[in-house]
């Protein structure tokens, strides 16, 4: 620390002390103003995003109102827009992705935070963080060329004879589908569940664990009966956080879901999500109403993820006492 220069200017002549002090005050105020402006700009930017989405979706909101959310006709030529197929696709893919990702992510988080020796845990956590850094378009690339053919040729033909009668596995399978999108999404959100849950688990007080172990409980019993109950709120928070991420995920889903606005019970049928339809159609919109409808979809997506993230952050805060960094 010795090399940090702490400025100690030579003493100033007495007569100029006051003006020097004045200039210091000015510098102090200026520094504060700059930093506070930057801090406030975060609020301004967030407000601006909301305002833009609200103002720009004016036409569509005026014409369709809340009906927009519950009608399912999407016909740009006739000027009829209903968001239901997209909302349905977004919700189904995200929920299914969570169903696959939660057990995996939680199991891995428990292993890293509680079961593994520290050195192994650190190395593995490093790798998990790298997995979280893989860009979504790369997931999409692997989804299109590796996962979709794999599901089509190897997985689905095997589960079809056994489960083909269930409505969710009904109908032909071409590869691109709600199911494929959910699998890609689940792989994408696992690292987030792992890293946030792991931090929440690590935030549980050490003496709780020690008390349990001292009473003769095994490591797993300690995890199951002491650590997890203590961390449960934060873990729910981490799941909400991943849900918000899954709802808003665009590229990877767009590349494997088949982009067909329909509501089918079968997971093997193609579908569409809010983010995907914006990505596909926003650039080619003809007419203001069409664009406005897509922006209204964006507003819906923004609103939903904003609320879910908001709840998630509060849940995590109440557990760990500080904001978890994801």
């Amino acid at each position: 620390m010795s090399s940090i220069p702490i400025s100690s200017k030579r003493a100033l002549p007495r007569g100029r002390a006051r003006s020097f002090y004045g200039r210091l005050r000015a510098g102090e105020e200026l520094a504060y103003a700059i930093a506070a402006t930057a801090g406030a700009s975060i609020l301004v930017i967030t407000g601006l995003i909301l305002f833009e989405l609200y103002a720009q979706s004016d036409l569509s909101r005026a014409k369709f109102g809340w009906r927009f959310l519950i009608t399912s006709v999407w016909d740009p030529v006739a000027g009829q827009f209903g968001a239901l197929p997209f909302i349905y696709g977004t919700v189904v893919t995200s929920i299914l992705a969570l169903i696959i990702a939660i057990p995996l992510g939680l199991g891995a988080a428990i292993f890293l935070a509680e079961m593994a020796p520290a050195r192994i845990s650190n190395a593995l956590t490093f790798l998990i963080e790298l997995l979280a850094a893989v860009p979504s378009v790369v997931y999409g690339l692997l989804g299109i060329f590796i996962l979709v053919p794999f599901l089509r040729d190897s997985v689905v033909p095997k589960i079809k004879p056994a489960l083909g009668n269930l409505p969710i596995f009904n109908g032909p399978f071409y590869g691109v589908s709600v199911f494929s999108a959910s699998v890609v999404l689940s792989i994408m959100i696992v690292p987030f569940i792992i890293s946030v849950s792991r931090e929440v688990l690590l935030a549980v007080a050490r003496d709780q664990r020690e008390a349990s172990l001292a009473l003769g409980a095994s490591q797993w019993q300690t995890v199951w009966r002491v650590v997890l109950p203590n961390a449960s709120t934060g873990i729910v928070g981490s799941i909400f956080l991943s849900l918000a991420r899954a709802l808003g995920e665009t590229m990877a889903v767009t590349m494997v879901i088949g982009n067909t606005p329909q509501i089918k019970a079968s997971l093997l049928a193609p579908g569409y999500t809010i983010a995907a339809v914006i990505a596909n159609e926003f650039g080619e919109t003809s007419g203001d109403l069409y664009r406005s409808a897509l922006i209204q979809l964006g507003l819906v997506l923004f609103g939903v993820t904003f609320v879910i993230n908001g709840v998630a952050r509060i849940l995590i805060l109440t557990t760990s006492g500080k904001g978890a960094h994801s």
Partner: protein
Amino acid sequence: MRQSTLGKKVVNYTMFALTGACVIFAVGVLFFILGYLVYNGGKSLSISFFTQLPAPVGETGGGMANAILGSGKVLLLATAIGIPVGFLGGVYLSEYSQHTSAFVIRYVTDLLNGVPSIVIGIVVYGLVVARMGHYSTFAGGVALGIMMIPISVRSTDEFLHAVPQSLREASLALGAPKWKTIVRVVIPAAMRGIISGTMLDLARVAGETAPLLFTALGNQFWSSGWNAPTATLPVMIYNYATGPYDDWHRQAWAAGFVLLTLVLLINVTARLALSRGTYVPRG
């Protein structure tokens, strides 16, 4: 609920194995992704990928030199917009903010961080592209810049927070004003962390595709200046992977390989730098 010692051990080892399997699966996915990209991308990669423009539709060969340069330009602009705001915001949170304002700004920063990237894309379309009347490199930079702000705020905030209070007190006790303490003592002490955080931030937005679709758009040729649409690597991957030609798919793999290598390299460098301690004496 009592369990025999043996039963307890069996359950313990079973759960150890099961949870361990979850980690191995997740890490396996990483190596699986790396393996496929190295195999397929390496196969398709050539010098011309880095030096030539995309070939006209129907012809084979060509490269993505314009997309590499375009990505660089967009990221440079994004850094110039996002990092100053994010850095100063982080300084405000750590050094100046009161309890309530700190909570509100941290909370909103986290929410801004969670806004889906496609939403940022359409907002910047409305704010920049629609007003300027055309797609541009600049609009792409603004979109990614906005995405960089919340991450930069949070990482700066955290690394400044980690600087011991005694350093600040020592500086103040020597008569340095607060702003000088922050600029010459606190920030230098957290510099390594802040730089690493910035690199991670950059790596995250480098792979973003959705915000660029309606801002930087894309371009088959060199982009002229900051005002014209530009090709970027992630958008090229998307367009080429979803396109109908085998040669495009080959190029998409090569581009994916280059992008992933870049992103992971930045990540590894920044994380290794971080793990070696947060404090650097200023030279």
